[in-house]
């Protein structure tokens, strides 16, 4: 097999199980790719070449002894640095936890290992996952593989960049307000925020407890489905985990999407976005129609009101987790994260509770809309990847630039606030050559349906086949 680091996880695992590709060869190819691109991209906080090769040799021995191999047998995996991998530093992108080495895998990592995946390193991230840029004062900025002067977004920026750069075919990220979907869109890969409670967060350093999720990033919806087959399921060690039936995500992709309904909240989804983003989303809707999906428009007024309650919850909860360190080690935080944590301490309990009540209202409205449609569709970000130093960004009117960080999570905050699944899928490129992502929002625990729509879309398009020049 030539260039094994270019394979999707599904193709790589199939080649490994068929003995056409050694897991050692595959792992070494990805480690070589990390070495080749890391100076340019800075996707990893740490790389575990020795541990990964030892795991690959163990996989090889299992296969030689007659084992059938798992669905992800021998497939290299990048793990965001706020998710525990036994024996590897888990800093959460912070100086505060710079020396923390867990002695056990997080539940998500353990499940992927059981399916055959091989962790090769810990991916860079925004400090403590509290931010959307992956500008990290402690471990350096992760750069976008498509243009190194652009952000990879975040907070799972290293995970998105590693997959886009072909350093790892699959990655784990966490998503509170958009931290999987934003880097997926900025880097041109697929990223899934599961329904809250679908994937165990045990062994993961929290950001905002009531919105935190763990999920996959990969180049294809099919690979994300393979990962969800391994990741999804109840975990009694996670008090937020849901005990709901788990569908066969990969198998579901073989079903037709004909007759499924996708709803566009046009007044929200296509307002105040860059023209290239609006055009890509409209074109994508046409592609979905061409494969038999019915596209309708809906109006959901509450979508325009998400920012304040989402940001209030997203600000208050991390401050509770960090309260002690904020007083004993304030100098060890980056300036942006420290300011946000301080701000969270000043928010009123009454406003927090009203924001939680807004979530109930928003979720009811979205579920109403999802009774008449199988998914809602929006852009993932209103713009393509911003410049590394961008404070403002042009949306529609060059004479009236917007504050970038006030808009970056406008769409991803919706399923985060409602506890629903959200999937970002590459849907084209802007005139600047940067990827554009669209977001599908679904009913609780119906990630398989979102992946099915994305898979049908990817079968009809080739955006996901393009690779950045590195």
């Amino acid at each position, binding site marked *: 097999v030539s260039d094994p680091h270019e394979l999707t996880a599904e193709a790589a695992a199939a080649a490994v199980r068929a003995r056409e590709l050694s897991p050692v060869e595959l792992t070494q190819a990805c480690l070589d790719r990390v070495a080749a691109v890391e100076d340019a991209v800075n996707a990893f906080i740490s790389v575990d070449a020795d541990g990964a090769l030892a795991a690959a040799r163990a996989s090889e021995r299992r296969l030689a002894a007659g084992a059938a191999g798992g669905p992800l047998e021998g497939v290299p995996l990048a793990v965001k640095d706020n998710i525990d991998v036994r024996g590897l530093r888990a800093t959460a992108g912070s100086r505060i936890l710079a020396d923390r080495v867990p002695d056990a895998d997080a539940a998500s990592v353990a499940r992927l290992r059981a399916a055959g995946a091989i962790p090769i390193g810990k991916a860079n991230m925004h400090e403590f996952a509290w931010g959307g840029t992956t500008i990290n004062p402690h471990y350096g900025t992760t750069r976008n593989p498509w243009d190194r002067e652009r952000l990879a977004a975040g907070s799972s920026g290293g995970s998105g960049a590693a997959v886009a750069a072909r350093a790892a075919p699959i990655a784990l990220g966490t998503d509170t307000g958009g931290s999987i979907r934003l880097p997926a869109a900025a880097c041109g890969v697929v990223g899934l925020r599961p*329904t*809250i*409670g679908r994937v165990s967060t045990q062994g993961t350093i929290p950001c905002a*407890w*009531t*919105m935190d999720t763990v999920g996959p990033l990969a180049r294809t919806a099919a690979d994300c489905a393979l990962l969800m087959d391994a990741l999804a399921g109840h975990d009694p060690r996670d*008090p*937020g*985990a*849901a*005990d*709901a*039936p788990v569908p066969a995500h990969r198998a579901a992709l073989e079903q037709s999407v004909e007759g499924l309904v996708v709803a566009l909240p046009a007044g929200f989804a296509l307002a105040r976005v860059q023209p290239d983003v609006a055009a890509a989303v409209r074109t994508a809707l046409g592609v979905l129609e061409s494969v038999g999906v019915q596209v309708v428009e809906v109006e959901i007024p509450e979508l325009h*009101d998400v*920012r*304040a*309650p989402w*940001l*209030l919850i997203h600000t208050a909860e991390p401050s509770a987790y960090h309260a002690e360190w*904020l*007083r004993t080690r*304030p100098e060890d935080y980056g*300036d942006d994260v*420290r*300011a*946000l944590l*301080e*701000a969270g*301490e*000043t*928010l*009123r309990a*009454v*406003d927090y*509770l*009203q*924001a*939680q*009540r*807004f*979530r*109930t*209202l928003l*979720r009811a409205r979205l579920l109403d809309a999802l009774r008449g449609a199988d998914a809602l569709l929006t852009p993932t970000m209103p713009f393509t990847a911003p410049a590394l130093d961008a404070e403002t960004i042009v949306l529609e009117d060059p004479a009236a630039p917007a504050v970038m960080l006030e808009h970056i999570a406008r769409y991803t905050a919706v399923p985060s606030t*409602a*506890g629903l699944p959200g999937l970002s899928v590459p849907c084209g490129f802007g005139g600047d050559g940067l990827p554009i992502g669209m977001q599908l929002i679904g009913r*609780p*625990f119906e990630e398989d349906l979102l992946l099915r729509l994305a898979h049908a879309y990817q079968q009809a398009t080739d955006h996901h086949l393009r690779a950045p020049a590195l």
Partner: protein
Amino acid sequence: MSAMRSDATLPDDATVDALVRFAGLGELAPERTAGLAEWLRGLMPEIADTSARMAAQREIPPASVYGQPPLGLGRERA
């Protein structure tokens, strides 16, 4: 802590300063409070608006909070 404006939950400068001091943060790094106050002032009107609208919709129940499945999703489907 008594300087809350009567027309909204929008705090004035003195209240923000008091909140920061109350949280024990201003004493750690007083130079940071200016940026913090600016951020809060930008967000507070929206938060106040949301709170006012939610307060007027008393029929909406409180959401579940951490300690049980978030938003009750797990319990609904279990």
